[in-house]
């Protein structure tokens, strides 16, 4: 199976200061089990915690980051145990400040994404047991 997602997320981080605009085009793809890549206010991290339960790969990269918007993509191919998560990639905003929930009056966010792929064969439940 060959799977690709294209992701664009914009998170207005509440009271956090708006980072200065940064644009970084097409950095190196991260294809390791646990790797990270930062651009502007964001860090992309790969996590292959079920790496050994399948055969395949995952590669992810930041496409661009500017202010409170990041675009990134991840591509993966996995075979193996259908009830075990193989890998995921997440992006996280770096500059937020932990606050009491009641201090947040809003948390506006926009996420445009797409997915193309075939051959999904997995089952289970997150985050308790599994998926793929």
């Amino acid at each position, binding site marked *: 199976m060959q799977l690709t997602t294209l*992701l664009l997320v914009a998170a207005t981080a509440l009271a956090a200061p708006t980072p200065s605009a940064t644009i970084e085009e097409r950095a190196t793809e991260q294809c390791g089990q646990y790797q990270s890549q930062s651009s502007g206010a964001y860090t992309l991290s790969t996590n292959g915690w079920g790496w050994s339960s399948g055969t395949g790969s995952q590669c992810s990269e930041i496409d661009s980051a500017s202010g409170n918007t990041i675009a990134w993509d991840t591509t993966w191919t996995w075979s193996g145990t259908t009830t075990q998560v193989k890998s995921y990639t997440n992006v996280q905003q770096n500059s937020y400040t932990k*606050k009491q929930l009641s201090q947040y009056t809003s*948390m506006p966010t926009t996420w445009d994404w797409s997915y193309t792929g075939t051959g999904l064969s997995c089952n289970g*439940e*997150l*985050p308790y047991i599994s998926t793929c």
Partner: protein
Amino acid sequence: MIVAYDTFVGISASGANSFEVMVWLGLYGSVSPLSANGYPFTPIASPTIGGVAFDLAYGLNGNVKVYSFVAHSHAATAFSGDLVSSAVSSCISSTSRH
């Protein structure tokens, strides 16, 4: 395969999280959020956030209460909403008897 926000809330800024609140915009294949009422889960609430209809699942992962808002369409590819909206907080508070 899922596309999701994953947020964590604890009782102090430096402490362990007590709640995990996810918002699943995409769900492909036979994957389910954690559910205390079986699989497939029976929604404990069905709020609309940012114009998108969600089904809410609840489950306990160790000591962490996990709330998963799953887009009813399983493919909310253009989402724009407020994760601290009244729809979110009221669903969690009204179901926090769990």
